[in-house]
């Protein structure tokens, strides 16, 4: 009996344009997380502070604003504005979630393909390194967007919905575009950095540990350096502190760590440049395949 049940069949159908070949790679990388309960729980936990503190504030003001007993309490509540959003967007909890998602989704982006030797299978197709990296980066970027920009959108929708204050949308337009800018510059740079780190190792575990080390090393190191020198340059060691400052600057609020806006911008430009440099060196001569 022949080993194959049917003969070889040729394919004469259509082929998609070269520019769209990244889509299945992106989908295969990103989609599995939406089926993991732990990941969905993480998403809920990310939204929770926004709903509780943000939407809850709006709810309290609208529902209890007329009650004389609650008026004093309601007066104490901070307004939902750029300052409040900056605090929520860049607090310790949000940063912690950012690191978890970067480690969980990001550490294996390139490293796993190197370990399983599927990287050469992908690059041996009509995919190309740029499309491959775009697909992988987009997978992580989509989730970082979900954990940073989407909660702000949810907050704005709840606030406007509960208060009926549509003027909020143009009086505090910076809440939305500032957050989008922060997401693109900050977490966006983080995506490229994670890709660069992931391209340096065959072990997603090592990449994850390196990410954790880099993110969490900076905080105590910078805090202590700042305590010694009182110079904003001390925060350069801490990616999380710089992210925080960037968030404040994008939303037009003065950051607590007194990091100047130029310093923030240059920091992320330098980090982006270094990460792109690593990716270029790794992929241009295919060193990443060795």
């Amino acid at each position, binding site marked *: 009996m022949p080993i194959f049940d049917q003969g070889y069949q040729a394919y004469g159908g259509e082929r998609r344009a070269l520019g769209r070949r990244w889509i299945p790679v992106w989908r295969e990388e990103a989609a599995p997380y939406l089926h993991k309960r732990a990941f969905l729980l993480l998403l809920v936990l990310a939204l929770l502070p926004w709903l509780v503190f943000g939407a809850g504030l709006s709810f309290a003001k609208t529902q209890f604003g007329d009650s004389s007993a609650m008026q004093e309490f309601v007066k104490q509540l901070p307004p939902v504005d750029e300052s409040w959003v900056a605090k929520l967007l860049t607090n310790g909890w949000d940063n*912690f979630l950012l*690191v*978890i998602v970067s*480690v*969980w989704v990001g*550490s*294996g982006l390139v490293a*796993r393909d190197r370990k399983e030797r599927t990287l050469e299978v992908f690059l041996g197709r009509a995919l190309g390194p740029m499309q491959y990296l775009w697909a992988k980066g987009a997978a992580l970027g989509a989730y970082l967007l979900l954990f940073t920009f989407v909660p702000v959108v949810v907050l704005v929708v709840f606030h406007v919905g509960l208060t009926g204050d549509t003027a909020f949308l143009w009086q505090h337009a910076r809440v939305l575009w500032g957050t989008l800018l922060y997401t693109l510059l900050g977490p966006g740079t983080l995506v490229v950095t994670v890709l660069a780190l992931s391209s340096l190792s065959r*072990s*997603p*575990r090592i990449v*994850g*540990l390196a990410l*954790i*080390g880099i993110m*969490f*090393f900076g*905080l*105590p*190191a910078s*805090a*202590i*350096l*700042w*305590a*010694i*020198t*009182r110079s904003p340059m001390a925060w350069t060691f801490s990616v999380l502190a710089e992210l925080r400052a960037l968030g404040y600057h994008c939303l037009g609020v003065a950051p607590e760590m007194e990091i100047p806006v130029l310093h923030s911008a240059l920091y992320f430009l330098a980090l982006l440049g270094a990460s792109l440099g690593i990716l270029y060196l790794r992929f241009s001569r295919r060193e990443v395949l060795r």
Partner: protein
Amino acid sequence: MAAWSEAAKALFSHTAGQMTRSVKGFVFLGLALFPWGLLLLLQLLIWRGVPVGLGGSTLYGNLVVAYYMGFLIPLCALFFGVALIADEAEGGTLPYLFGRPVPRHVVFLAKFAGMESVLLAGTAVSMAGAFVLSNLEAGALGMAKGAGDFLMDLTAAWLGLLVYGALFSLIGLAFRRPLFWGFLVGFGWENLVAWLPGFLKRITILFHLHTLMPEHTEPKGLLNLLAASESKAAALAFLAVYGAAFLALSCVLARRIEAAHLEREG
């Protein structure tokens, strides 16, 4: 018994030697020496007459709490603990190790001991150097006065390494994604719950470690409040129980493990 005790010694030496010669070992060395760099910077600034925000002994206290306890010890224990068996699985050498006529839990304990010996030695050197550099102005007499507190800090650091090391080794054996769970526990649960009022903080390692550390090395107020919550003897007892339990569970899992299970971990 004699046959596998020699094997255990060989594994211990091999694990310790490998750690000191690996890239991870050099990273650990760099992280351990970082406080020296900070303290040397401080001394340089003081020597040049630059006004600084805090003195050597205060900086040392901040380093112990924020850097050693809050970062270095959990990170290094995570770094090396989850990799204890996983590195062997990834490298394809686990079947050779477990195929020897040595009980698997002995293999695990020998590797654990090798790992801990390097971490304990490295941390001791780092903290001793930091203590000396931070008390240069106080001189030998000042250092002698502070030696007791330094020894308490070192004891707390060592206990932290042992218990965290056991915890993360257990996580490395038990979970498919040990890094994720280790990170969640070591940097999430520990940091969040250890600062909460109530009984819940006793289910963290960090709280008991803070209890053991001398009050004057901590920022005033907050840690005094926490330190008053239990006695040092109770803290030691909790840590001993946790450490023993984690190690015992790890030994049980090591005996039952399948190499293929570990190879699937990303």
